[in-house]
């Protein structure tokens, strides 16, 4: 078995095995943030029940319609993305599919389907270059978008660029390989020996003369030959070529990229030709082996996801229903990191201000995907990272409406938030309100900021003027809606607003942070509205919460709270 065959089989096995592994994860979803663990049989049954296949008369046309419009014509990219996005991806999709079926799989597709197929005959020779050009065009647009557009740059990962680079290597080496074959004397001689009936030296010279003059072939010996071949020799070569070459060879000029390229590459060298051949073959086989493990898997997962969702009228009606675990698992895999969700995200400004990575939906989804395969071993750090960004989401559903891959993101966010809270990583607010006085004392110590040092600080807490007028009349407390409620446990109203104002004006803001009342305040601004001295009571309470957040964020960034983080989240 040749080395090539060994590599082909290994890569093919990796592709097949990896794909089966990914499929098995759809059917046997691991316990994770988005996909509660279920045995495969139950997962499959719930999927089938949710598909409402009973109404096959409606389901089948809808599936076919989606297949043609959104998968073959890629219409979802034009409707949910933009015209450029569609042009980019359709070029990649059409070119790649053409090369895959009519070039890479020629023995399985082209030869059986088209009698008399030869890769060097038109239209195949022309089509191969056309498909390659389509891929290159799509690749160029994609690279420009990923590297130039600000919204795209924000969400582009190394893997996206790697995938584009890999495709570029496959197509680029393909063009060079075809070009180098066109001017390879070794290939010429092998073909002549194989197909010319009993060639003698004159025949070979005539054929060389014809191919050099009329077909752009370059031989090392003819380049040295200053005097051109005689017309008779070329005519003899033409006859030989018509008889022996033409049945399998169209004139190379129809390969409109490789033919000009071949003249640049001439003369050929055997070492370079081998290098180009291995580059092309290895890049293609690497892509095959990598397919189930990286971004290219969307070639399978995204169409599956779109087809599954097409059976759910709820998403079309903008009322996403809860999803079966299988659909959630497929949805996680169907993301192509196209970035549409993140560029339209309602809380994008929060990301720009806070720089918490998992605020952006596309990043959050990839974090969730990473958590999905861990067999229940979700680390506290990963959960904390998800929780910090994920709970900033306001559930506005825009990402779900816009997702070109039709992932029911809204459902994923809702279920993941619920699961994160259950695992002890609720929203930051809930975690903060349960931190005890000793923790706040420690954090204040880590972050020693004496009050009233920043003379011109815009902060209310830092400014003595804020509280100068306070006479502790307790009107703020008496108008507070919480203090007039019957049967509120004393623990919820441990400190009153006027007491907090007093702490703050004494520079003891940190002592107010563990107060339950600070976190129970409904921010109704009754206190501030009614204060006879014009103290901005509610604004100060907000500022205290901001202070608490910044204390904990600084501590988290310094790794101070990691060890106890999980325990603290629990009420």
């Amino acid at each position, binding site marked *: 078995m040749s080395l090539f065959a060994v590599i082909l089989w290994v890569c093919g096995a990796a592709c097949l095995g990896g794909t089966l592994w990914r499929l098995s994860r759809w059917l046997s979803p691991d316990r994770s943030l988005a996909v509660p663990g279920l045995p495969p049989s139950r997962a499959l049954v*719930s999927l089938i029940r*949710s598909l409402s296949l009973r109404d096959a008369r409606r389901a089948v046309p809808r599936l076919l319609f989606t297949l043609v419009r959104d998968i073959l014509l890629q219409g979802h990219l034009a409707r949910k993305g933009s015209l450029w996005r569609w042009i980019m991806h359709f070029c990649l999709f059409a070119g790649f599919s053409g090369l895959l079926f009519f070039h890479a799989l020629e023995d399985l597709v082209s030869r059986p389907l088209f009698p008399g197929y030869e890769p060097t005959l038109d239209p195949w020779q022309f089509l191969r270059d056309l498909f390659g050009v389509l891929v290159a065009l799509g690749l160029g647009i994609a690279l420009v978008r990923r590297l130039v557009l600000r919204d795209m740059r924000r969400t582009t990962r190394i893997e996206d660029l790697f995938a584009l680079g890999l495709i570029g290597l496959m197509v680029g080496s393909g063009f060079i390989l075809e070009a180098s074959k066109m001017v390879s004397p070794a290939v010429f001689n092998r073909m002549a020996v194989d197909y010319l009936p009993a060639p003698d030296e004159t025949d070979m010279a005539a054929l060389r003369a014809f191919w050099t003059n009329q077909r752009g072939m370059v031989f090392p010996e003819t380049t040295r030959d200053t005097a051109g071949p005689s017309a008779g020799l070329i005519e003899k070569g033409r006859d030989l070529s018509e008889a022996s070459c033409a049945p399998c060879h169209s004139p190379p000029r129809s390969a409109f990229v490789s033919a000009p390229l071949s003249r640049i590459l001439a003369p050929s060298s055997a070492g370079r030709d081998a290098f180009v051949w291995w580059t092309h073959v290895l890049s293609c086989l690497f892509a095959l082996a990598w397919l189930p493990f990286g971004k290219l898997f969307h070639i399978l997962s995204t169409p599956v996801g779109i087809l599954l969702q097409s059976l759910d009228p709820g998403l079309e009606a903008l009322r996403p229903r809860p999803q079966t675990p299988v659909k959630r698992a497929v949805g996680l895999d169907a993301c192509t990191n196209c970035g549409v969700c993140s560029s339209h995200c309602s*809380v994008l*400004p929060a990301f720009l201000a806070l720089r918490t990575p998992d605020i952006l939906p596309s990043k959050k989804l990839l974090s969730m995907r990473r958590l999905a395969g861990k067999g229940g071993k979700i680390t506290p750090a990963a959960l904390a990272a998800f929780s910090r960004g994920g709970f900033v989401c*306001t559930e506005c559903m825009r990402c779900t409406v816009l997702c070109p891959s039709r992932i029911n993101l809204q459902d994923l966010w809702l279920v993941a938030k619920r699961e994160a809270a259950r695992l002890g990583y609720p929203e930051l607010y*809930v975690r903060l309100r349960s931190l005890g006085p000793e923790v706040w004392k420690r954090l204040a110590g880590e972050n020693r900021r004496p009050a009233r040092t920043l003379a011109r600080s815009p902060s209310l807490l830092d400014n003595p003027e804020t509280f100068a007028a306070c006479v502790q009349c307790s009107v703020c407390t008496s108008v507070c809606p919480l203090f007039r409620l019957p049967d509120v446990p004393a623990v919820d109203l441990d400190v009153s607003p006027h007491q907090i104002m007093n702490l703050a004006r004494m520079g003891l803001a940190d002592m107010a942070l563990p107060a339950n009342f600070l976190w129970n305040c409904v921010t109704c*601004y009754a206190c501030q509205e009614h204060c006879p001295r014009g103290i901005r009571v509610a604004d100060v309470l907000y500022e205290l919460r901001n202070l608490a957040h910044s204390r904990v964020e600084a501590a988290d960034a310094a790794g101070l709270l990691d060890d106890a983080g999980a325990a603290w989240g629990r009420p």
Partner: protein
Amino acid sequence: MTHAWFPGCRIPYHLPDYGRESLAVLEVLGIAPALLEFPCCGYPLRHQSLSASVLSAARGLAVAARAGCGVLTPCKCCFGHLRFAQAALAARPELRAAVDAALAPEGLSYDPDTPVTHLLTVLARDPGLAAIRAAVVRPLSGLRVAAHYGCHALRPSDVTRFDDPRSPTIFEDLLTALGATPVSWSLRLECCGQPLAGKNDRLASALAHSKYVSAMEARARVMATACTYCQMQLGRTGLACETPPAWAREPVRASPLPAPPLPVAAVSRLAGAAMGLWPLEEDMRPASPGR
């Protein structure tokens, strides 16, 4: 100046009816707000980071300003926070500088004069109540309504400049124009409890409960809201999408809030019913005098 529709994040999924019905009512009055893509107003972030929440608000206002529009929102928290951000940006040059620096790369610029309007103001003040009366074809005669004001539009009044913070009338004026009978009730200006939902459910539900009791003591048939968050909290609209279906085998999460003992309707529902756009639900119709 034309309005741009700023529904707020909670409308599309959590309370789509309020958004749809508000636009329908506005259409009857000849108001067609521009539909732009807005970011979050920033209100939910105010606990965490003032600067992040103000940046979010400023970005929304800049998006409206670029289209030459003012902002029109049905949510009092969006309204209150957008006004709050305008006040904060006017008072704090360092915040303004940070916002300008963050918006510049996006080709946006913050305009301090972008008008921020709440739905109630447009209904009761902008075209004037005469326009409402003219549009009413099925007056809500005899319907006793408790107008729930919500906090963030009213207070802090020097920032929001919405209505008299101690004795507002805008909501009652509108209800009267619709033919309903607004009732006087003691807790009409108090908090609905939503800010504590999911954070301290016991207190959140106690606040909601006290409002129901107060409205019923005033013999209100319906409570009316004009805020997405208040309606979510008091109206308890069951989301079909959050009820796990049979195959899910997930535990149904019982809501910590009591079921509302009286119907709670967003103002758009009542206004649209009075304008003949849709019938009022059975339980919201005035009790027949015979009973």
